[in-house]
């Protein structure tokens, strides 16, 4: 099994108490073990991402941390409070942005936030400033008087992020914050999240199944089939793959394939007119390839491993394959199942 290297390279060196700490956290729904004895800790100020296919157990884990779902076994603390025994305290310390919108469409943007402020007891003397600040941050201050019904999907999500921050939580939980949004809006949302990271000393815990989004995190935990496979910084994870992706085009693909396989002991594949193979230290390998008299190379492309490659390395399949097999297994969103009655 892979060494969880993140423990000693991440921001954990400061020695501050972790903001989130989970020990053997488990959730079973009847026969189905959605989360299998997961342990991790998140340091203050960190942006921590759960990456995995739909149905991997990310939302169930986040639901347990947010006190919405009771763990079957194991413990977790958020901001020092136990998520089972000190629910109210935990709730006061966290901001939540759900997968599905939870705004009141008939109220204005500002009214939705004021409603939230009352529920979370934002001191009245701070409220107006804070409201202005968070709405400004997501670029919705000008639209504060508009009925939410008139907002686009991206604006609603931004408003929810602002709302999640309104009561100055210690931790902001974002469950698939950009799901269902178009690529441009997604990148905007990430702009706001990164800005937030810069400006507020807030810890963020998010889930995503988009590889490119996981890059924004300080540390990534890859989750698959209810288990944490590996936790580390995006860079360290990519380094741990240990191989670069090299693509070449040549005069004679057949000959080139043979040479790569026989002389260099590689497993080349041909896709979209290029020969692709993985090799350690790709930039050092390429000159050796040029030196070989039996290959005539037209072009070379060396790429560092992506998170897709990381996922592939640790789980043995691509995230897209995992999605295909995972969706029918855990179709029902645990929050939808239990949220209504609590």
């Amino acid at each position, binding site marked *: 099994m892979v060494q969880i290297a993140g423990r000693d390279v991440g921001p954990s060196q400061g020695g501050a108490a972790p903001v989130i700490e989970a020990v053997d956290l488990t959730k079973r729904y009847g026969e189905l073990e959605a989360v299998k004895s997961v342990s991790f800790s998140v340091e203050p100020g960190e942006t921590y991402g759960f990456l995995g296919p739909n149905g991997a157990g990310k939302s169930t884990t986040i639901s347990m941390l*947010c*006190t*919405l*779902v*009771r763990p079957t076994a194991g413990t977790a603390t958020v*901001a020092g409070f136990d998520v089972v025994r000190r629910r*109210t*305290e935990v*709730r*006061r*310390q966290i901001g*939540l942005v*759900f997968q*599905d*919108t*939870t*705004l*009141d*469409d*008939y*109220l204005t943007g500002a*009214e939705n936030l*004021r*409603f*939230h402020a*009352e*529920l*979370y*007891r*934002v*001191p009245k003397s*701070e409220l107006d*400033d*804070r409201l*202005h*600040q968070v709405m*400004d*941050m997501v670029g919705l201050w000008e639209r504060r008087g508009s*009925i939410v019904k008139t907002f686009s999907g991206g604006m609603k999500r931004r408003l929810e992020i602002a709302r999640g921050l309104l*009561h*100055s939580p*210690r931790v902001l939980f974002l469950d698939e914050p950009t799901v269902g949004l178009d690529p441009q809006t997604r990148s905007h949302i990430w702009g706001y999240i990164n800005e937030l990271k810069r*400006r*507020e*000393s*807030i810890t963020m815990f998010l889930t995503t199944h988009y590889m490119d989004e996981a890059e924004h995190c300080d540390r990534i935990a890859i989750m698959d089939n209810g288990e944490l496979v590996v936790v580390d910084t995006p860079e360290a994870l990519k380094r741990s793959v240990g191989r670069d992706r090299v693509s070449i085009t040549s005069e004679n693909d057949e000959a080139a394939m043979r040479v790569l396989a026989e002389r260099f002991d590689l497993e080349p594949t041909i896709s979209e007119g290029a020969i692709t193979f993985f090799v350690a230290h790709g930039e050092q390998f390429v000159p050796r390839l040029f030196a070989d008299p039996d290959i005539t190379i037209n072009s070379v492309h060396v790429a560092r491993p992506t998170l897709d490659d990381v996922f592939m390395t640790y789980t043995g399949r691509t995230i897209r394959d995992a999605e295909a097999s995972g969706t029918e297994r855990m179709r029902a969103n645990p*929050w939808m199942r*239990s*949220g*209504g*009655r*609590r």
Partner: protein
Amino acid sequence: MSAAPSTVIGVREVGTSLGDDMRAVRMIWKRELIRFTRNKVRMITSLAQPVIYLFILGTGLSQLIPGGSKIDYRTFIFPGVLGMTVLFTAIFSALSIVWDREFGFLREMLVAPVRRSALVLGKCLGGATVATFQGAVMLIFCGLVHVPYSAALLLTLVAEMALLAFTLTAFGTVIAARMAQVETFQVVMNFIVLPMFFLSGAVFPLDRLPRWLAVLTKIDPMTYAIDPMRRAVFDHVTISPRLAHTLNPGMTWGGHRLPAGLELAVVAALGLGMLVMAVVQFSRPE
């Protein structure tokens, strides 16, 4: 503004004070009012049905009452129609919880660090306020059904409607807690709300009924509010005591007619009971 140094407002004191919960109650109450006033269509359509009952059904059925009785059927039905207005508005308000669940907003309330009792109380007070308002609007028709605009009468009716409105919103909230889909709404209307209305004495006197029907009228909470309202109206119109008794035999337990105060106490007790049930339902763990 945005340039101001943003500090994390640190850890706030733990513990739940009554004042903090009152903030939540007031906010949820206010939300009901905001949503109600924004929905002009609902304000008008929820009055359409009582108006139809009062002036179309009321006028039509007036023909059945012998000419010598000197009382307009519409005067008789008026307290019932007020009750109907309150009933429909209150139940509709309560069932909006199901919409909130469907559109996600309920979760925003349920995950907040607020006692469930505060959420339920705010909801019930909000629904009750809206329903009482709608009932009070119906009072403008007093003159058209030969009921005087007496301040004492109007105040009595508004107070009685407010009590009924609270009980019915709490009742609706208990139903809504068990309802998962908006589609169930029609079922609730047809199998709970309409029978409650017809069994309450709103449209016909409740004596000389077959036994099975008489029993049903006694367990209908609305009955205990329609009777005091009709008594108040009859006290302010010219009507012989005999006719008043025929038309409004009132609620009897074991042959004794209940005084209005006791009837209203029954409504209040039911309301509190429903409120407690609603809190229990929404506090249930997953």
